[in-house]
């Protein structure tokens, strides 16, 4: 059974249909990259998965449970699906470590003494050991984004969503964030990325989905999508960005 399954999902903002009937099935340990032009619905799709936006129609199943049911309590779902945003969205009044401890303590009810060593291990693993006690505005963009990833990982999610997490970074800082994703990939984390990093998608993804006007226009293994796309619109998009 798929870990996360979308069936005929639709979402409109006002009259504008942003997601127009998407079916997608994510297996455990799989890494999926969503590519497509700005406004094609990549970010909205991720927000629907973590219930930050309600689905208008269709279904999203997590482990067989319909999480798109209107009125469902979103908190338990969000504890299982982590998300990292383009603009980091760290809490500016808390240090990197405090950012990371907040949810495990408040949501999981764990003690600081219990969570801190885990958080320290994550900071250490991603080269942030000496940045734990810094505030977000004392960190570079790349460091902030790595802290945001650590913060999401500290909740031990089963799936991680990444919403164009390198798009706001200076080019020389992109690499350090992609290294974090490589490391997560190596340990078998289930990941869904909305990304413009085509080289990265080609290198690591199990599957690439090309979104166009709220639909999955074409999907398949990265080698085929990038070297031999079958849809003219995919070809047109790739010729613009590659």
């Amino acid at each position, binding site marked *: 059974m798929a870990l996360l399954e979308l069936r005929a999902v639709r979402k409109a903002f006002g009259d504008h249909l942003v997601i127009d009937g998407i079916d997608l099935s994510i297996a455990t340990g799989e890494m999926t990259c969503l590519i497509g032009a700005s406004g094609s619905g990549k970010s909205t799709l991720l927000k629907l998965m*973590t219930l*930050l936006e309600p689905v208008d129609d269709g279904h999203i199943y997590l482990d067989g449970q319909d999480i798109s049911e209107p009125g469902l309590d*979103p*908190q*338990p779902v*969000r*504890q299982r699906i*982590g*998300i990292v*945003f383009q*603009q980091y*969205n*760290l*809490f*500016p*009044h808390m240090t990197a470590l405090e950012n990371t401890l*907040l*949810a495990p303590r*408040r*949501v999981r009810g764990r003690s600081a003494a219990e969570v801190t060593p885990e958080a320290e291990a994550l900071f250490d693993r991603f080269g942030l050991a000496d940045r734990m006690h810094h505030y977000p505005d004392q960190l570079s963009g790349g460091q902030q984004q790595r802290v945001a990833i650590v*913060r*999401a990982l500290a*909740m031990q999610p089963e799936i991680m969503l990444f919403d164009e997490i390198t798009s706001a970074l200076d080019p020389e800082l992109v690499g350090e964030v992609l290294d974090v994703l490589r490391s997560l990939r190596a340990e078998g984390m289930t990941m869904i990325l909305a990304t413009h990093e085509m080289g990265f998608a080609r290198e690591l993804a199990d599957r690439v989905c090309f979104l166009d006007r709220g639909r999955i226009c074409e999907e398949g293994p990265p080698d085929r999508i990038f070297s031999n796309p079958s849809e003219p619109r995919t070809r047109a998009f790739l010729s613009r960005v590659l």
Partner: protein
Amino acid sequence: MTGTPLTRRQVFEARQRRRATTIAAGSTCAVLAALVLLIPLAPGWEAVKRSFFNAEVFAKTFPGLLNAFLLDIAIFAWCAPLIAALGLLVALARDLRNPALYPLRLAAMLYTDIFRGLPVILVIYLIGFGVPGLGLPRPWNSPYIWGSLALILVYAAYVAEVIRSGIESIHDSQRAAALSLGLTPSDAMRFVILPQALRRVVPANMNLFIALQKDVALLSFIGPVEIFRQAGVYKSLMANFTPYVGAALIFLALTIPATRYADHLMNRQRKARS
């Protein structure tokens, strides 16, 4: 000096600064000199000097005024924390989304509308004379209690609006980030949004508390002998207005530094955000 030679730009700016300082100093001196020379030429100056700037009266009444001012400070000191607490509660009540709590939300809205819409002195009269009129036993008929309550109700309404504007100024992405980690909406408010919002409105709230410090004097209209009332007593006793000038100086000694400090905080925030 750092030892490095100044750039052309620095030399130019230093010259500009010196020029500006010289002109500012010159024009200030000219205006002051005009005031000092011209005002005494007014026909009533001697009379004004006698009744408003009488050194002898000033020396005699100033210690008593200072003493009376302690009551202003005391009233301020017990009102301020209650205002902060009530203002916070009302601000939070206005953001309630639970339909069962709608009456509370409505009440908070009416409350801020009503008390921001009335002159402070009117509220002080209505509550300060009205409630003791119920014939309550001591100490519940004290004008201190009801006058303070009037100040608290009016100022908490303003503080609530300031806090609410702070809450609304926090970008929605902060709330989204908190919720995405599994926090409940109330935890997101308490740990993520409110701490940032309160920090952001410190200068605006300081200005409100400076205004409160001055409005404490309005309680004199319903009885308490604080500094304004005390100055009035001295005025009648000595048939001289100098005690009012003394009282004004005492207020300014407190409010000017506080205002400067609030401005300083506001500037610092503006710089930090740009």
